[in-house]
């Protein structure tokens, strides 16, 4: 009797099987394969493509002696911090905060404009950003009208261009998160503080921000991860150039694996990215678990 019950209990989990198979085959297996391949000299074509040899930590040694890798790590950090942690996060909070005060039609119109950049297919957004920052693009036309001669952004300041483009593209997410969070802040608390004579800054720092603390943490985590993986925007706008000046880790991994056909080296870079993502992922899960208690 008891045995039959356990069997039936386990049968209940049967519907999970298709999902588990898909996740194991297409997410878990590639991750494991990536770690394995990063210790080989696997290649896209030629002899090493058919019979890759085990080369141990050679790829990783090469990674750390290759000047392109530390540069790419640095550029990735700059890109993530400037465009996600500072740009999208703060601008999203600012827009959401302004929306609680502005008139309804104004918030609706501006909200739509911000979301539009986010909803567009990424390749279209990337072309629009390319046109905007190109030598005689919209930005320089505007600067020209104001009497200033704009530089060729994509060559002179490629990182500035991709960071601004990513802020433009991704801020909608933070805005939506913070709008929901601010809507949950009880109005009477901040009105009570207002009656007590608290200034706008004091209300923000001592009341609103602590109340939406968990939304801030969640949002920071998610935008960081999304930005860590950005490829299309950078690839279309600058292709990592000029001379690697905007090559972040995803772009570098793509170049090594597919342009130069060095799968082993490419997966070593990808493995570093995967570890980064998993570290953030575990921290994120911890954060959510702690939240529930």
């Amino acid at each position, binding site marked *: 009797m008891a045995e039959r019950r356990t069997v039936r*209990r386990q049968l*209940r989990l049967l*519907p*999970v099987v*298709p*999902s*588990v198979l*898909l*996740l194991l*085959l*297409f*997410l878990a297996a*590639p*991750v494991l394969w990536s770690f394995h*391949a990063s210790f080989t000299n696997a290649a896209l074509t030629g002899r090493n493509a058919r019979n890759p040899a085990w080369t141990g930590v050679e790829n990783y040694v090469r990674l750390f002696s290759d000047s392109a890798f530390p540069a790419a790590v640095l550029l990735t950090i700059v890109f993530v911090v400037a465009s996600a942690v500072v740009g999208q996060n703060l*601008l999203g909070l*600012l827009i959401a905060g302004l*929306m609680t*005060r*502005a*008139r*309804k*039609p*104004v918030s609706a119109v*501006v909200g739509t*404009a*911000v979301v*539009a*950049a986010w*909803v*567009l*297919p*990424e*390749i*279209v957004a990337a*072309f*629009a950003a390319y*046109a*905007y920052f190109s030598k*005689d*693009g*919209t930005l320089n*036309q*505007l600067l020209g009208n104001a009497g200033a001669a704009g530089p060729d952004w994509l060559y002179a300041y490629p990182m500035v261009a991709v960071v601004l483009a990513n802020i433009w593209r991704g801020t909608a997410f933070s805005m939506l998160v913070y709008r929901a969070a601010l809507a949950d802040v009880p109005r009477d608390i901040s*009105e009570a503080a207002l009656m007590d004579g608290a200034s*706008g800054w004091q209300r923000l720092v001592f009341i609103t921000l602590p109340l939406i603390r968990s939304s801030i943490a969640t949002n920071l985590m998610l935008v960081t991860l999304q930005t860590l*993986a950005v490829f*299309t925007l950078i690839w279309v706008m600058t292709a990592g150039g000029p001379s690697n000046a905007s090559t972040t880790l*995803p772009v570098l*991994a*793509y170049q090594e694996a597919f342009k130069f056909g060095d*799968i082993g080296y490419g997966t070593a870079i*990808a*493995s570093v990215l*995967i570890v980064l*993502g998993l570290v953030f*992922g*575990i921290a*994120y899960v911890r954060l*959510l678990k702690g939240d529930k208690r």
Partner: protein
Amino acid sequence: MTTTGRRPLEGASRRPTRRGVASPGFRRARTPADAALLLIGACFVLPLLWLVFASLDTTAGYRTQLPASASLDNFAAVLTPELLLGPLWNSLLLSAGTATVTLGAAVLAAYPLSRFQSRFNRPFLYSILCGTCLPITAIMVPVYGLFVQLRLLDSLPATVLFLAATSLPMAIWMTKNFMDAVPVSLEEAAWVDGASGLTALRSVVLPLMRQGLGVVFIFVFIQTWGNFFVPFILLLSPSKQPASVSIFSFFGQHGAVAYGQLAAFSILYSVPVLVLYVLVARGAGGSFALSGAMKG
């Protein structure tokens, strides 16, 4: 509150505020807030202007200019089976296929997670959540290797399965949340009548969470529709590529870039997801209202 959105701006400012006497500070700050928001909004619209102007301009370049003579020639030029319709059809196959597989697998997985207590539930859900954090660009190199080994390269069904796997973690979480909002008490009657769990799922639970299912479906659909990197790596033959990849045919085919056509193509390719987003934005509101009504 629903009528205020339709009122003209001037009327809104003279309307007495309903927030009561306690909020003079909020009201005073309105005009600067409006101005700041409109400025930010303008910055967000600017990059899109080129897209609109160039699509109507047969002599477009990367300069943003009002077309000398607006025409729909660019749209007419890209509306051919090879340039637009074929790629859009491929996008539709990919997106609809991925959304269907994802939703099917997610519903099945969410049911036991939502309805039965098991010691596997929490570890499973949290490792899935961790899976959502995998940078997709990082696993493309190993996935390419996997597809080569399994001889799945350039296969639409295999690409659909991979895309479904990448969107599954988020979809399972969303579906489980929507399912949790359907009270178990409604299924108990079906169980008493001798229906199995899956019968109860089909006849009782799914109809009640129709809107939630729609939200998940459209969510995955939009994501896949806009995805460039995955089909770019996994699909090789032009006849199978979706619009996000075939858009590159406007570059260098005859030496020069057809900017006007590129813009027109971009707009036509974007319209379906814009429409779907509006639908999901409304649908989400509707289903939240639904769950609220049931709790009350």
